[in-house]
C-alpha cells in the first residue's frame, strides 16, 4: 500500500486561498478587472491595426485620389464601407496617370446600392476598370481560374451570399464569382464589378429599380495610385493636388491617421480606464493586503514559532498574492476575450472602427502581457504588507492573544 502524500507548501497556499472565499473573491475580481481592461484595449487596438494593414494591402494603393469635397466620404468608403456615391466634377483624373512618379492609376466608381436581398442595409458597389485595376486583379491573380466577366461580381466577406449564386442591385442581376478575405474595413461590405456592367445597371435602373441610378459618363469617383518604386508617395500626392485642382489625396498613413482619429476616443477611454484601474488597484490591493497582513499576523507568528523562516513567510505571502493575480488574470482575460470575440461585429459597428480578429499569436501576447501586469501589480501590492509582517515580532503577535 502506498503512503499517503505529505503536506506541502502548495497545499497550504491552496487551503488558504480556498478557505477565505469572500476576501479572495474580491481580490480575484480586482485582478480580473485589471487584466480585462488591459487586454480589451490592446485587443481592440491590435484588431484595428491588423484590419487596417489587411485593408490597405487589399486596396494595393499608395494614394487614393478623391474629389476634394468628398474626401471624408472617400475615407468612409475605404474604412467602414458606409455606402456613398460621388464623382469628380470633370474628367481631369486622366491627367493623374501622366504625372511623374505615378506607376499605375486605377479609376473606380462608387455606387451606394439600394436594399438588396443579401444585406440588411445598402452596400457599397465599386466598379473597376479591369484594364487598369490593381485592387481586384491582384486577388484574381492569387485565385487563378476566376475571371471577372459580364455581370460577374466579387463580394466582400461581410456580404452574405455564396459563390455561384446571384445578387440583384438596381434590378440588375449579378453573378457572384468570388468572396474576398475578411479585412475588417470597408472592402468587407463592398461589391466589385466592371465599369461596363455598372453603366448597364444604371441604364436599366429607370425601368427595373424603384429609384433611377445615374452615373455620369466619363466620370469616376476615385483614382487609386501606385507610385514608382523609390518614389515618395508624399511627393507624388503633392504633385497630384497641384496639377489636378479639385482633388484630395488620401494616403496609407493618412488612412492610419484617420483610423487612429476614429479609434482615438475609444482607445483613449480604454487606455485611461486601464491606467485608472491599475493606479487605483495598487493602493486598493495594497490596503487589502495590509488588512490581511494585520489579520494574519498571529497566524504567521504561529508558523514562525514552529520554525518558518522569514523567507518562508515572504514566499508564502507572495505565492498567495501571485496565485490570486493569476486566477484573476485568467478570469479577466478569458471573460473579455470571450465577450470581444462573440460581440466583435457589434463592437466594430458601434465604435465605427475597422476590425479583424487579431492573430492567435497576437492574442497570446496580449493575454500574456495582461497576465504579467496582474502578477506585477499583485507583487507590488504585497511588498509593504510582506515587509510589515516580517518586521513584526512573532512573540508580540502571539502574546497579543
Amino acid at each position, binding site marked *: 500500500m502506498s503512503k499517503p502524500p505529505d503536506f506541502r507548501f502548495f497545499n497550504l497556499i491552496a487551503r488558504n486561498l480556498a478557505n477565505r472565499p469572500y476576501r479572495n473573491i474580491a481580490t480575484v475580481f480586482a485582478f480580473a478587472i485589471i487584466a480585462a481592461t488591459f487586454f480589451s484595449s490592446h485587443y481592440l487596438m491590435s484588431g484595428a491595426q491588423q484590419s487596417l494593414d489587411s485593408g490597405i494591402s487589399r486596396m494595393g494603393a499608395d494614394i487614393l485620389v478623391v474629389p476634394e469635397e468628398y474626401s471624408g466620404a472617400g475615407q468612409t468608403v475605404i474604412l467602414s464601407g458606409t455606402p456613398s456615391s460621388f464623382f469628380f466634377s470633370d474628367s481631369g483624373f486622366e491627367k493623374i496617370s501622366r504625372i511623374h512618379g505615378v506607376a499605375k492609376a486605377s479609376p473606380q466608381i462608387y455606387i451606394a446600392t439600394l436594399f438588396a436581398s443579401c444585406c440588411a442595409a445598402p452596400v457599397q458597389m465599386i466598379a473597376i476598370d479591369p484594364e487598369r485595376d490593381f485592387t481586384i486583379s491582384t486577388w484574381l491573380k492569387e485565385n487563378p481560374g476566376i475571371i471577372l466577366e459580364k455581370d460577374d461580381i466579387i463580394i466582400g466577406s461581410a456580404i452574405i451570399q455564396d459563390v455561384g449564386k446571384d445578387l440583384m442591385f438596381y434590378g440588375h442581376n449579378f453573378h457572384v464569382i468570388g468572396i474576398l478575405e475578411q479585412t475588417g474595413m470597408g472592402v468587407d461590405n463592398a461589391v466589385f464589378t466592371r465599369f461596363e456592367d455598372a453603366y448597364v445597371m444604371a441604364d436599366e435602373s429607370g425601368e427595373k429599380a424603384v429609384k433611377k441610378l445615374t452615373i455620369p459618363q466619363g466620370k469616376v469617383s476615385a483614382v487609386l495610385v501606385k507610385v514608382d518604386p523609390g518614389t515618395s508617395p508624399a511627393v507624388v500626392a503633392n504633385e497630384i493636388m497641384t496639377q489636378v485642382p479639385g482633388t484630395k489625396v488620401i494616403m496609407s498613413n493618412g488612412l492610419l491617421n484617420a483610423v487612429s482619429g476614429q479609434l482615438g476616443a475609444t482607445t483613449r477611454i480604454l487606455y485611461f480606464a486601464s491606467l485608472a484601474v491599475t493606479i487605483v488597484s495598487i493602493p486598493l490591493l495594497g490596503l487589502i493586503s495590509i488588512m490581511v497582513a494585520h489579520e494574519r499576523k498571529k497566524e504567521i507568528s504561529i508558523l514562525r514559532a514552529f520554525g518558518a523562516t*522569514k523567507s518562508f513567510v515572504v514566499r508564502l505571502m507572495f505565492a498567495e498574492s501571485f496565485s490570486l493575480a493569476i486566477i484573476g488574470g485568467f478570469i479577466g482575460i478569458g471573460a473579455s476575450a470571450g465577450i470581444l470575440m462573440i460581440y466583435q461585429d457589434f463592437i466594430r459597428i458601434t465604435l465605427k472602427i475597422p476590425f479583424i480578429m487579431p492573430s492567435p499569436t497576437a492574442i497570446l501576447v496580449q493575454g500574456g502581457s495582461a497576465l504579467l501586469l496582474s502578477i506585477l501589480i499583485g507583487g507590488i501590492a504585497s511588498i509593504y504588507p510582506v515587509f510589515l509582517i516580517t518586521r513584526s515580532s512573532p512573540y508580540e503577535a502571539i502574546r497579543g492573544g
Partner: protein
Amino acid sequence: MIEVSGVTKTFRTDCLEIQAVDDVHFAVQPGKFILIFGRSGSGKSTLLGMLAGLLRPTKGEIRINGVDISNLSDDKISELRAKEIGFVFQFSGLLPTVTVLENILVPTLFCKKSPGSRLRALELLKKVGVSDRADAYPCTLSSGEMKRVAIARALINGPSLLIADEPTGDLDVDTEYEIMELFRQLNREGTTIVMVTHNPDLIPYGTQTYCMERGKMVEKPGSSSFIKCEPGLDNHPKPKDLP
C-alpha cells in the same frame, strides 16, 4: 539539555523601561517536567519566548543541547525551533483554513524529515485522543479537542523540548485535568516539558518547580499547591532579617 545563565530581558519604550526577566539562571535536564509558576506580568511568558528563540535576551545566554541560541541568525534559530522545540500556546493557535490533520502537519513544512509524516500525524492524533476528528476544521472542535490537536502538532517533528505557555488557561476544570494528564503521560514517555502557569493547582504536575515574580526566578522545592511565590524571600534573607 537547556542551560539558562544570567538571562535578562528589558523592554524599552519611549518613556518606559521594563525589566521583564532579571538575571535568571536555571538548567533543564532531559526528561524533566519544569513548571514555572507566577502571577500575570511576572515575566514567565517572556522567559518562555526567549527559550523558544522568539525573543532575544538583552543579556545572558541560553543553550539548547549545547548551542547558544542567543545570537543565532534568524534562519538558524528557525531551523532549531523546527527540529528541537514544540510549542503549545495559551490559545489553541490552530490555523483556521486547514483541517485538524493538516494543522498537525504544518510544522513538517519547516523540518526536512523523512516521508511518512502523515502517518505520524495520524498516530499522534490517536495518542492525544482525537483521531476521529482528523478531517474536521478547527472551528468545529471543542476547546479541549483544540488543545489536544495543538499538543499533537507540537510533537510532530519529535522535538527534544515541549514548551507550553499557560496551556490550560482557557479550559474548564475537567478539561484542564485531562490535558495535564496528557502532559504528564508525554513526560513519562520521555518528553522534556517546560510549562508556565499562574494556576497553583498545576504545581504538583512538575518534577521541578520554579517561581517567578517581577522577573526574578527561584526554584521551589516540593510541590505544594500553596506555594508562596516571592523570590528573594525564601532563598535569600530579607534586609530586616539581616543582623
